[in-house]
């Protein structure tokens, strides 16, 4: 963020609004929320007739400044990782800016801080993944041993997407390999007598990968009238689901070829 003093100019306001919307979309905020935030912020910073068009893959904002000139900016969004704390904080920044309880400099600093916020550490997120997978297995009718296998698999496999993202691997490939690895680990665990209910075990562990929220959000966006965003999210969800299915399916076929029962 620009640290200069003096009056804020339209360019700064526009950059700030665009960054607020971008951080929100990158962190799993809804499309309309990102749009509302950008418009509210741009309006509060002196832009008349501000408008924002957001999709999961990009934001476009334009407004007419006090001087009557038209300003606009495009921000591309490449990565989307769930970080709900960021969504809440950006919302809070935009509200305080609109209410006038925070000035532009403070808001810009805060937005920079929020963008730099790291997720939880490896230990905490692995434990959370284990809990998510294990309890889902119980919910789907698995027994305690199934839940433990799913938890271990989930903790292991949840380490995988961040590593792949750092190496700039496409999500499709990540999901494919993660789906296959999850399925193979669970089937192997059943083969060695650690798990009994393979379906519940695999579902619990796969729950960490499967784009259930993405499908739901795609429909929610469409209901809210953000048609392009909804269709884009739907396509994203479909590709993830397809990749996981191909991976898991390949793992099943391999398992069968190797003589294992389904």
């Amino acid at each position, binding site marked *: 963020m620009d640290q200069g003093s003096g009056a804020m100019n339209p360019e700064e306001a526009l950059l700030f609004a665009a960054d607020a919307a971008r951080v929100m979309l990158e962190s799993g905020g809804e499309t309309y929320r990102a749009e509302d935030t950008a418009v509210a912020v741009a309006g509060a910073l002196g832009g008349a007739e501000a408008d924002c068009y957001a999709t999961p893959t990009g934001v476009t904002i334009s407004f007419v400044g006090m001087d009557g000139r038209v300003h606009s900016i495009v921000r591309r969004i490449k990565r989307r990782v769930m970080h709900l704390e960021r969504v809440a904080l950006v919302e809070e920044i935009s509200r305080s800016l609109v209410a006038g309880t925070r000035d532009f400099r403070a808001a810009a600093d805060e937005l920079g801080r929020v963008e730099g916020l790291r997720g939880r550490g490896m230990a905490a997120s692995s434990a959370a993944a284990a809990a998510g997978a294990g309890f889902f297995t119980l919910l789907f009718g698995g027994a305690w041993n199934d839940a433990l296998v799913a938890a271990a698999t989930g903790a292991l496999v949840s380490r995988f997407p961040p590593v792949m993202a750092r190496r700039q691997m496409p999500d499709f490939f990540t999901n494919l390999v993660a789906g296959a690895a999850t399925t193979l680990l669970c089937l192997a665990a059943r083969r060695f007598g650690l798990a009994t209910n393979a379906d519940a075990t695999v579902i619990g562990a796969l729950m960490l990968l499967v784009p259930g929220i993405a499908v739901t959000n795609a*429909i929610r966006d469409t209901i809210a009238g953000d048609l392009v965003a909804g269709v884009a999210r739907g396509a994203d969800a479909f590709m993830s689901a397809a990749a996981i299915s191909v991976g898991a399916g390949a793992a099943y076929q391999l398992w069968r070829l190797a003589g294992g029962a389904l």
Partner: protein
Amino acid sequence: MMGPLEPLWAGLATAGFATMFNLRSRDVPLAAAGGALGWAVAAPLQAATGSQATAYCAAAVVIGIWAELLAAIQKRPASVYIACGIIPLVPGGGMYYTMLEYVRGNSWNGLATAFSTLQAAGAIAVGLAVSGAASRLLSLRKIGRRIRGSPRGGRTIR
């Protein structure tokens, strides 16, 4: 039939996901309660009506209202609680069974499962839309503000 502990498992699974989604620690139990609540509504209703869509839609309404209440009290966007609360309902199992049917070569069963999976997601989305509209009509924000005891509220959230 719903096992007596199922809402507990649903809540704990939600807590795991909420932590993974980097929800603030003190919000995690609140979001988890939403997940448990949703399952406690959905499971018996599905058993009683035999319709997954009805059950999930009703549960999503309850989760949505719970999230709006929390949002008003905690002064945070409702969507952070919604994203976690719907986790137990979200059709991950359906996607898995769809895949399984295709792998086993039962394309027609796979298609049917895929459709019911989409239906479940749609039912959740509709339920959330209903609860969003209802909370605006009933001005839950005002109630939340009263509970919080603060005179000023934030910008209205759609």
